[in-house]
């Protein structure tokens, strides 16, 4: 009767041996999928999982705190520095001028309504972003693309497709110069 034979006697090796003591290559595939050796087993211990979960969520918390800190620090410094836009004398009543504020922004539109009143808005129509043209004589701003109309005093949409108000730019007259001081929204 045949029996399995033993390799040279002595201490056992680091790898487990299949029951037939045959070569590893000759073993069925499931034996590789369900290894007996601890190192080959994709086992995630409870402690490892907890460590992973705690450290990952900790990293999220730190990230959130960092964002909060950034926000708080940013809120402290003034968002807009006043910048001169035009001299009062530069614009006749009913005239308009485009400018950028702050530096590099989309174009804004400054309109002189009467001797003392200046208003400024984004020049982009709130419908599809066409540049608006002033129609101060009618008390309106006009977007020629789709015939949209805005109230020049408030920036509110009056007619046509635009539904939202034009974002306002705060302006202020100081010593004969018009300064932009802030942007809405």
């Amino acid at each position, binding site marked *: 009767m045949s029996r*399995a034979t033993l390799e040279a006697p002595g*201490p056992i090796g680091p790898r487990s041996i299949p*029951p037939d003591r045959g070569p590893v290559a000759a073993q069925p595939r499931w034996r590789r999928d369900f290894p007996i050796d*601890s190192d080959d087993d994709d086992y995630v211990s409870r402690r490892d999982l907890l460590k992973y979960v705690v450290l990952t969520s900790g990293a999220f918390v730190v990230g959130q705190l960092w964002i909060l800190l950034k926000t708080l620090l940013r809120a402290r410094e003034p968002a807009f520095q006043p910048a001169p836009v035009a001299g009062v004398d530069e614009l006749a009543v009913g005239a308009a001028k485009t400018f950028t504020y702050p530096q590099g922004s989309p174009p804004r539109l400054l309109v002189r309504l009467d001797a003392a009143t200046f208003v400024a808005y984004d020049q982009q129509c709130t419908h599809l972003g066409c540049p608006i043209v002033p129609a101060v004589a009618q008390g309106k701003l006009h977007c020629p693309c789709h015939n949209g109309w805005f109230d020049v005093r408030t920036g509110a949409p009056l007619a046509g497709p635009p539904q939202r108000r034009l974002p306002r730019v705060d302006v202020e007259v100081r010593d004969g110069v018009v300064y932009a001081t802030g942007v809405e929204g």
Partner: protein
Amino acid sequence: MPVPEKLEFFVDASRCIGCQSCVQACAECATHKGQSMIQLDYLDRQRSTQTIPVVCMHCDTPTCAEVCPADAIKRTEDGVVQSARKPRCIACNNCVLACPFGVPKMNSRMNLMMKCDMCYDRTSVGLRPMCASVCPSQALAFGTREEMARLRPRARAVNSFQIGRQLIRTKVNVMVPLELPDEIVDVTAAMYEPSIGHDPLDAMAPLEEEP
């Protein structure tokens, strides 16, 4: 940290005096409070008081792990077959039935198989297992091979076992008389009954002839 390679476990049943110290020491261990992972078996209760301490032999072909459907029993690279992983063990009893040495026992209250892991928390840092540290007759001994050869000149350590057609090499050594010629202890040879000419392996003979 693996168990130091030069330290080995030696079991000499002929030295066992049945004092139950190992069982008590094992049960007191903090990692498995109250449950002993070592058993003291009687060889032949009717005729003898001889007892045998049963620790896990830590096979290189762990049958318990082979039969585990939940993939719960794993063997570390130092050759120690670990106790069932608690989150995986489904208490199916397969290992209990399959182990040729009768080591695993089911803890049905915890629905968990707990078996001797050679006190991995102790041996992996170079300490002796609980049972070996308390055994008064050193039937359970943990030390180097040279030490054992010096202390027990009339015995030698064997770690190969033939069980039916299964050949098993173990991490734990069994002390046998020096004059025993075999390298391999044939465990199932005891089942051979000459009076009826019965060899348990004969029943398997037709299987072997198949390709």
